């Protein structure tokens, strides 16, 4: 702790709003909102981010609910959990790390940042939920596979609402 040129959010601290930095950001605590950095954003074990992260490099050992844009690379370590979409040219997912969402590596911007697409996503969620209810009467494995789709979809919706 106490390095001169970086921002550190300690474990008992909650920040809600927008963080913009030209230096590294290390999150041990909780952030609800957006994080922008021209350097590295490091979500440590125990750290929680609900919102959007855009940085040169993003390293996730904690939990992120929302989309991630890594200009250079994104790394999910063995304890990392991501509930949202990831757009980056280089990605590392260590064994044990979990992602629930889409990964875009073709340089296209995150579609879910686009409000039009977001709106569509929102609209398409309730019908799929309805169909889940119908299909739940069938075999249980099928319901589980639907659950995965479900949890990957609402993430942008939730982060939208919490702004």
């Amino acid at each position: 702790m106490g390095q001169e040129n970086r921002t550190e959010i300690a474990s008992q601290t909650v920040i809600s709003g927008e963080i913009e930095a030209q230096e590294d950001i290390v999150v041990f605590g909780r952030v609800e909102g957006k994080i922008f950095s021209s350097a590295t954003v490091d979500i440590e074990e125990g750290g929680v981010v609900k919102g959007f992260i855009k940085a040169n490099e993003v390293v996730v050992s904690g939990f992120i609910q929302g989309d991630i844009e890594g200009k250079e690379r994104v790394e999910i370590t063995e304890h990392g959990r991501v509930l949202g979409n990831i757009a980056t040219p280089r990605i590392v997912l260590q064994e044990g790390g979990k992602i629930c969402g889409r990964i875009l590596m073709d340089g296209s911007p995150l579609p879910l940042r686009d409000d039009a697409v977001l709106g569509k996503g929102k609209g398409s969620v309730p019908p799929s939920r309805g169909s889940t209810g119908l299909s739940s009467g069938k075999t249980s494995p099928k319901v589980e596979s639907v659950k995965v789709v479900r949890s990957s979809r609402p993430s942008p919706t939730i982060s939208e609402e919490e702004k």
Partner: protein
Amino acid sequence: MGATVIGSNTRIEGKILGDDPIIVRGAVKGDIDGNGMVEVDTSGKVEAKVKAYQLIIKGNVNGVVTGLEKVEILSGARMVGDVKTPRILISDGAIFKGRVDMEISEV
């Protein structure tokens, strides 16, 4: 327990709350609600309502501040706004414009 540090090249717009010590070297606009120590370092710029157990100002603060135990406005600080606290220290070289409310009970 670590401290929360807002680096000198960081801007936060919103609310910061927590039990950790908070050191501000960058810019914060909004609300700081700390149960521990809050320090605004020389490079820090705070435009916010600040509440802390102990508030130490060495940088720039614009807003209403409350120090539950004490407020220190040190040399080089520039404080504009009202201060509410039972104990206050204003050092030589500090700039302070605003009111002080120390809750003196009338006898």
